[in-house]
Each structure stands twice: as structure tokens, then as C-alpha cells.
């Protein structure tokens, strides 16, 4: 066998492995029967329609979007401001602060969630979408901080200096110079945060109570075992994420 054939065969096998679960998931979301397992009994959209008319799932979807966009906006604001603060001046504790701000990146979500749960418990704070959002800001702010820090280089600092020299106040510097200059990084940081929050389960599970996000709602669906409806939810989530990614990819290419 030629080298090319070996490579092609290897690629084919790995792609099959990678695609297998997604293909099975999507295929059996159209299953005209009670179980999402072979044989395939015919094509129907009833499970998808059932998902779309499921009140609880739709509320969870709305909650997820709220938490994802809200927490990402806050995470981006915190991360962007902190990145600027560390970039513009030489502070004595800069290294320590940088380490502290990025520390949550290296801790398991489970541990972060449990720590917050124990603390909220001790402080007597009730669980809600707010506490979920707090948890998601904790995991996403370091990410935004790291991305903004990487994007703010000497070019931005020089431009900011020039802007200040020409009479710009702090707000004007940020609005007219820094933010537009690192816009691609800001967009990337925000979208990445949204993705992470949108898909995050364990923190949302630990820190929510009555109002839950979509992954938590899906989790409770799993209790009903193998079910084409779960396939349909999964497929729809996949569709939304893939479309969002496609839109991002296209906008990035246009730039």
C-alpha cells in the first residue's frame, strides 16, 4: 500500500470515529418509533416538533441564552479592563495579580462550582440563574482577560499614549482607540465565552434551583433513558451551535 493510501485510510477511520456519535444522534432524532436504536423505522419530524413545543425546554433555552450573553458581557468587561490596567502601567504586584486572575483556568469546573456552592450555602444566598451567571463569569473572565492581554501589545499602548497626548480622557481612549484596535480579539473572547457558558453543565447544575439552563434540563431528560426526543434536542443544539460557528467563520473571513 502506498503512503497516501495508508494516510487516507487512517483519516477515514478517525473521521468515522469522530462523526459516528453525531451521525447516530441526528439520524435517530428522525426515528419514527419509540427508541432511537436500529432498525430505522422511517422519517418523522414529530420529536423535533415536540421539543419546540416543550415549554420547559424553551424556558431553559431562554435561560441559557440569558446567562450566556449576560455572563459573557460581564466577563468580557472585567477581562478587558483588567488587561488594560496591567498593560498600561508597571505595577509592583503585576505578576501576582496576573497569576491570580488566570488561576481559575486551571481549576476543574466541578471544584469551582462546589466552592461557590459551599460559600453561598454558608452565606445563606439562595440559588438562581444569578448564581449560575456568577459561576460562569468566574470561569470566563480569565479567558477574556488572557485573550485581551495577548491582543494588547506595544502598538496599542503607543496609540493610547498618542490619544492621551491629543487630549483624550480615559473613556475616549478606550472607546475610540483601544477597543476598535483589538475588536477581533474582543469578538473572539465574547463568542468563546458565550459558547462555554451555553454548553456548561456542572456549575449550572450545582448553582441553579428552579430556573435551569438548557444543559441541566437536558440532563433531567436523560433520566427517561434512550429517547428520540433527547436526540432531537441534541440535534437542535448542534444545529444552533454549528450555525453560530459558521456565521463567525464567515465574518472572520470577510475581515
Amino acid at each position, binding site marked *: 500500500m502506498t503512503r497516501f493510501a495508508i494516510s487516507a485510510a487512517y483519516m477515514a477511520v478517525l473521521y468515522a470515529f469522530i462523526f459516528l456519535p453525531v451521525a447516530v444522534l441526528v439520524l435517530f432524532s428522525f426515528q419514527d418509533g419509540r427508541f432511537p436504536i436500529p432498525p430505522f423505522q422511517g422519517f418523522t419530524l414529530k420529536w423535533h416538533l415536540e421539543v419546540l413545543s416543550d415549554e420547559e425546554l424553551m424556558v431553559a433555552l431562554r435561560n441559557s441564552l440569558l446567562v450566556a450573553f449576560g455572563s459573557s458581557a460581564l466577563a468580557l468587561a472585567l477581562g478587558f479592563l483588567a488587561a488594560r490596567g496591567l498593560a498600561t502601567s508597571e505595577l509592583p504586584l503585576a505578576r501576582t495579580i496576573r497569576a*491570580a486572575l488566570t488561576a481559575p483556568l486551571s481549576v*476543574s469546573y466541578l471544584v469551582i462550582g462546589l466552592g461557590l456552592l459551599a460559600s453561598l450555602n454558608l452565606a445563606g444566598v439562595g440559588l438562581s440563574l444569578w448564581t449560575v451567571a456568577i459561576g460562569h463569569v468566574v470561569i470566563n473572565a480569565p479567558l477574556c482577560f488572557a485573550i485581551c492581554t495577548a491582543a494588547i501589545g506595544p502598538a496599542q499602548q503607543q496609540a493610547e499614549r498618542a490619544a492621551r497626548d491629543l487630549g483624550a480622557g480615559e473613556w475616549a481612549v478606550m472607546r475610540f482607540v483601544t477597543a476598535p484596535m483589538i475588536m477581533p480579539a474582543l469578538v473572539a473572547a465574547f463568542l468563546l465565552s458565550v459558547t462555554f457558558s451555553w454548553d456548561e453543565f456542572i456549575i449550572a447544575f450545582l448553582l441553579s434551583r428552579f430556573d435551569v439552563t438548557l444543559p441541566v434540563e437536558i440532563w433531567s431528560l436523560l433520566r427517561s433513558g434512550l429517547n428520540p426526543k433527547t436526540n432531537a434536542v441534541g440535534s437542535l443544539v*448542534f444545529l444552533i451551535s454549528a450555525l453560530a460557528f459558521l456565521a463567525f467563520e464567515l465574518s472572520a473571513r470577510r475581515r
Partner: protein
Amino acid sequence: MSLRIEDRERRRAWALLAPAVLWTAVFFLLPFAIMAAMSLWQKTDDGIERTWSLVNYMTLFGNPTYIEALFNSLEITLIVTLLSILLAYPLAWIIAEEVPERYRRLALVLAVVPFWTSYIVRSYAWSLVLAKQGVLNTALEGIGLPTLDISNSRAAIVLGFTHFFTMLLTLTIYASLTQLPPNLRRAAADLGAGPWATFRHVILPLTAPGIAVGAFLSFALCIGDYVTPQILGGGNDLALPQLIMLQLGRRADLPMVAALSIVLMAVVTLAYLVVARFMKVAR
């Protein structure tokens, strides 16, 4: 005389930092400290007793269930990490080296498509594939092979994890492969190295840090994950996160949960130190 302009600049820097620093302190460092403290307290029938002792840790390390869970987690994580590297490296290599340049990005995006399914749904999808009468067994039967009964087992967990981390590692290894200087291979060949020698002595050492970072990422994400073992493992040999959630859900034993979390973190930190040391040696 004070340095007034620079003072102002420093004050402004602190003002910009303050929200993030406060947030991290209140919602990350403080909870961590509380958890550390709590791990030294005890659960009683009517709440938490705040006396300091190592009882939780002693129970933890004296109880075979806990030790087993820790070793289950470590075992799964190590197998998964190793398997994923072995599967991902050739794929990343093929994409970086043999796929024509214009299809490279497409090949890469396709290799991570399942990222866009929800992380819970991914595990659920594997349980569909591996179910007793699922796709895999139907296919095996169809070609006359014996069926595999691996749903709800250690093998299913490993498979589910390996699927995810193969994608992740393909990305990180691909990134480190494309960062190699293009003339490196030519130089090695010029000096008489065959393809295998070039790989063994040039490419592999240079991509080792990329592999190490990916491996650490896989390790940390894998050992702290509750969802995959819970969905695919069927509640047999518990992994550490499952045990933690069990303590939380069934017994509401927050001090014990805290102690287990600290142990989990210690393991991840240890892995980080190993990787950091390895990277220093590699450089």
C-alpha cells in the same frame, strides 16, 4: 516632590484592575479558602460543626471506596490521555503534512465538528451507539461478528472521553506542527536523516511541548468530569467526581465534599507540576 502624573497613571491602572481582582477574590479565592476550611470541619446530624481536624482526610484515605474512586479516576484519565495522543498525533500529522493546503482548514474544522454538540449530548450519543441493540452491535451482527456488551462500563467511559480528547489533541498538536520552521525537515534530510530519524530526533522533540500542554489539558478536564462517567459508566466503579456528587446529593456532607475536592485539585496540581518540569527539560 511626588511623582504626580505617574501616580495618577498607577491609580488609574488599579481602578481598571479593581473589578476583576475583586470578582476573583470574592467568587474564586474566597470560596476556595472557605472550601479548604470546610474540609477541616465535620458534618453532624444538625449541620456543620466548626472544629478543626483532619477527620475527613483520615476517613478519605482510610476508606477503600474513596481510594478506589481516586485510582479509578487516575486509571481512566491516564489511559484516555495516552490513547488520545496516539490517535490524534497521526491525524494532526496527516492534516498538517499530507492534506493539500487549500483543504487543510476544512479538514481541521471537520475533525472537531462534534465540539458543537452539547457536551452532555455527546455522551448520550455514545450511549446510543454502544447500547445492547445499538448501532454498533447491529452492525457487528450484520457482518457476522460477536456483539460487544460494553454499555455501562469502564470501556464505554474510556471511549467517550477518548472521542472528545482526540479532537482536542488534534487541534493542539496540529498547532505545534504548523509552528515548525518549514526548512527544518529539508535541513535534516540534507544532513542525511531518513524520515524516521527526522521524526524521532527533530519533529517529536519540537512538538513535545505542544503534546504536553494538550495532555495536561486532557488530564485536568478528564479527571474533573462528572458527566461522562455518570452517563456512560452506569454507576459501577465510581470515578472521583461521581463520588463527590454522591456525597453532595445523597448525604449532603459538605465537609467531605470539600475534602474530596481538595484532593482532586491536589492531583491536578501535581500533574501540572510534572508537565511544567517536563516542559523545562524539553526546552
